[in-house]
């Protein structure tokens, strides 16, 4: 049982707010796909729906909105179109002229980015990599769950190796004469370091007797409330596509 779920709920309420990982993946996909295919007021419906879903199913997703880094990344989406798109037909405070088309475009990009950020953060906050691996394995992608787990654990390390190696190269005069040669040396160093770490992971996995063939993922059993989620999301998606 998910330790993040409220303890004071009744069984039915708990079942509704804690859908199976496969359904949570479906919720994420729903938000992403509906964001891509919707525009105008429909995008507003998807935005409201995603925030409501986050509030009910994965409140952790809303916490991403408190991160300054998110807004640092999103602000250019709203601000740049205001000044880059012509004509600048709107007067704002201080006599500054901005584009009304740019404002509409910037707002829609901002809303789309917020929807995806909240949905993805909510999914990653409530579904463990083990559960995601189980969903992928149950879908017939043998070993992909394990590879994804390795990648998730390695991505931070990869970033660290990339940056420290590149910095070391620059400090020693790299990239000043031959980008091709120094780029190759940088890649060789980074990949070599990661392959050494990979060997350690292989030894650890083999010591535990891991084999992709022997993995028997738990069958995704969907409860009645999970089927309700699927029905409601399908109905809303169909309504938005048809209207």
């Amino acid at each position, binding site marked *: 049982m998910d330790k993040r779920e409220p303890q004071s709920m009744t069984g039915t309420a708990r079942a509704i707010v804690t859908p199976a990982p496969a359904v949570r993946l479906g919720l994420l996909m729903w938000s992403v796909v509906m964001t891509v*295919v919707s525009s105008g007021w429909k995008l507003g419906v998807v935005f409201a729906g995603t925030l409501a879903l986050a509030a009910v199913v994965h409140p952790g997703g809303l916490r*991403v909105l408190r991160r300054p880094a998110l807004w640092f990344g999103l602000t250019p989406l709203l601000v740049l179109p205001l000044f880059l798109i012509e004509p600048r037909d709107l007067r704002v405070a201080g006599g500054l002229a901005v584009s009304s088309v740019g404002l509409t475009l910037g707002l829609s990009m901002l809303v789309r980015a917020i929807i995806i950020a909240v949905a993805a953060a909510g999914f990653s906050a409530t579904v463990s990599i083990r559960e995601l691996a189980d969903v992928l394995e149950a879908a017939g992608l043998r070993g992909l769950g394990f590879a994804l787990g390795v990648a998730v654990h390695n991505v931070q390390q990869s970033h660290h190796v990339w940056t420290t190696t590149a910095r070391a190269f620059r400090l020693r005069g790299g990239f000043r004469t031959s980008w091709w040669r120094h780029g190759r040396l940088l890649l060789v160093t980074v990949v070599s370091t990661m392959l050494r770490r990979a060997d350690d992971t292989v030894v650890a*996995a083999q010591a535990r007797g891991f*084999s992709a063939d022997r993995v028997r993922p738990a069958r995704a059993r969907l409860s009645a409330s999970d089927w309700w989620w699927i029905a409601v999301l399908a109905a809303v998606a169909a309504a938005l596509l048809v209207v």
Partner: protein
Amino acid sequence: MRYSVRELVYVGVFGGLWGAIEISAGSALHALAVPFAGLLLGAAGLTIALVGRLYVPRPGSVLVMALVTAFLKMFSVGGVVVTPIIGILMEGVLAEGSLLLFGSSRAGFAVSGAVATLWPLVQPFVTQGLLGGVGVLGVYDGVLRLGGKLFGLTPASALAIVALLVAMHAAAGVLAAMMAWRVGTALRARGHQWTSASPSR
């Protein structure tokens, strides 16, 4: 997909390396709206994936690495995430398809790189033109303007601009593939033997 433990770990490691590039440099380049950011990222990602192919020489391994990278990108925060995910997956599909057709030789790598890096040129027609509502002709106009500016040609020389853009993208892919081959050779010289085609633990 029946991979050995070692191959699965390598898929994860190369997916992680590609993912680190997409998450850090990719987010920065897209946020700054750097021209041809997709081409730069595609070439860098393909270099990693093709080195990975030398260590996981099985049909489908580049596609699986792309899938892992797409999942990592999905969980990253910053900018619009959907279009890069489409790009990563399509580059994986094109590279894998070419490798299946032409083999994992040096020439096969070159063709695979050239074909896969053409996708960043095609992607705006799909994402902006069809999904974004700009229209295919609108995107074509934008591509001609950007290409014309880059090569110093007027949009009237449409055919020349398109041919030069295709050549530029394909050349970047071939360079990425040759870089991957040379990196793989250098790694083998350092003792990191390529995995044989037969399953190995």
